[in-house]
């Protein structure tokens, strides 16, 4: 009950016209920065931190929250419209959103992504406030064996969903593992897979791989299909229709639940 009162107190603090203006400004700036490939929410906060210095602490935090969520959503814009995820969390958005954009329904896809992001954010916030003490204890019990099992499950799902050929899925997963090995060895401190190249000694960034695979593939596919534009029509409206909302309702609920429970695990 006390937690709920704190939450309501927080809402009371935020819901003033000036604070709402600040959160809107933060979201807009965050979205613009988040659209740039490779600039995720954390980078956006770091880049725009000086802007918040001129504000009061509460307003600064409010603006940073706006920037964070704006940057999170900004990454999905390029993912949907150009099949180029701005960050790793936008990859699933690209898989479903881009085909919609190719059909001329990019506006609806952007709208669904925004609504889904908003619903999951609110669900996560309320869930975290109410269940934080219980979940924090459980999350801290997650040790190396539990993470191993979780990652094994992720790999099994990958092998199962990534097509008809099990062999190709294994190669794909193993190649992904291989890319993650570059950098300083955790056990010995000796550089692995760097061959004296300083950039490789720092490890390979996941975002570089994602942009490389998605963006370059898209450019080459565009050349092959002699495509001039991705979206054949201008985006007129971004609010999805009734049918779209009905069909995306359950996936949003599933995504919110899954994201919430995975998000509380340290390191995920």
């Amino acid at each position, binding site marked *: 009950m006390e937690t709920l009162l704190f939450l309501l107190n927080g809402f009371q603090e935020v819901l003033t016209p000036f604070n709402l203006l600040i959160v809107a400004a933060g979201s807009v700036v965050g979205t613009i*920065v988040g659209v*740039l490939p490779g*600039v995720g929410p954390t980078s956006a906060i770091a*880049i725009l931190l000086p802007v918040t210095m001129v504000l009061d602490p509460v307003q600064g935090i409010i603006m940073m929250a706006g920037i964070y969520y704006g940057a999170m959503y900004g990454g999905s814009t390029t993912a949907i419209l150009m099949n180029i995820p701005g960050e790793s969390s936008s990859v699933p958005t690209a898989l479903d959103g881009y085909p919609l954009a190719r059909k001329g329904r990019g506006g609806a896809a952007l709208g669904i992504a925004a609504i889904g992001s908003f619903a999951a954010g609110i669900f996560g916030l309320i869930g975290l406030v109410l269940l934080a003490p219980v979940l924090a204890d459980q999350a801290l019990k997650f040790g190396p064996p539990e993470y191993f099992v979780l990652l094994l499950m992720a790999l099994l799902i990958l092998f199962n969903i990534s097509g008809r050929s099990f*062999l*190709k899925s*294994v*190669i794909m997963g*193993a*190649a992904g*593992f*291989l890319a993650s*090995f570059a950098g300083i*060895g*955790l*056990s*010995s401190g*000796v550089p*692995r*897979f760097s061959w004296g190249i300083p950039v490789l000694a720092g490890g390979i960034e996941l975002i570089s791989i994602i942009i490389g695979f998605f963006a*370059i593939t898209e*450019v*080459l596919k*565009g*050349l*092959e299909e*002699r495509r001039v534009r991705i979206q054949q029509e201008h985006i007129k409206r971004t609010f999805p229709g009734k049918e779209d909302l009905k069909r995306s309702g359950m996936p949003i609920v599933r995504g919110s639940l899954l994201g919430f429970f995975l998000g509380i695990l340290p390191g995920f």
Partner: protein
Amino acid sequence: MRKIAGIPRKTGAFISLFLGIVSVVEAARLYPYRTDFWAGDHIFPGLIGAILVAAGLFLLLKREESSRRFVLPGGKIGRKMTATAGVLISYCLLIGYAGYVFSTFLAFLFLLRIIGNYRWPDSVLFSGLFTCALYLLFSEFLKTPLPNGFLF
């Protein structure tokens, strides 16, 4: 356009074999730094390398299972795709030596010519504008360090 059969599978198999061998060689290099046979930085590269080699061999020896025929782009489109990949690889290699401004300008110039079919004067103009705009955005506004080369 040329119809091909089996080439994508064999290419994938050879890539898998190559990556697997690289990984196993790296594991062998890291082996002396181990704390135990089953503990150390060599173990995962070794295991993954072995998996990649085995999967590559299986893929290479596997019978063609579908009658699908892949079409390899040829002619003008094929040349364009090869040139695009070549420009991107050259850009990666050049940026460290020539710096961001010069290499990005060149990469944009050739990509606009190859992909967009723009005329040379237009390509020069647009690549100059894009390079300046990105430099301003990343270097000046977002304070992202960009590579400096022998030029500037």
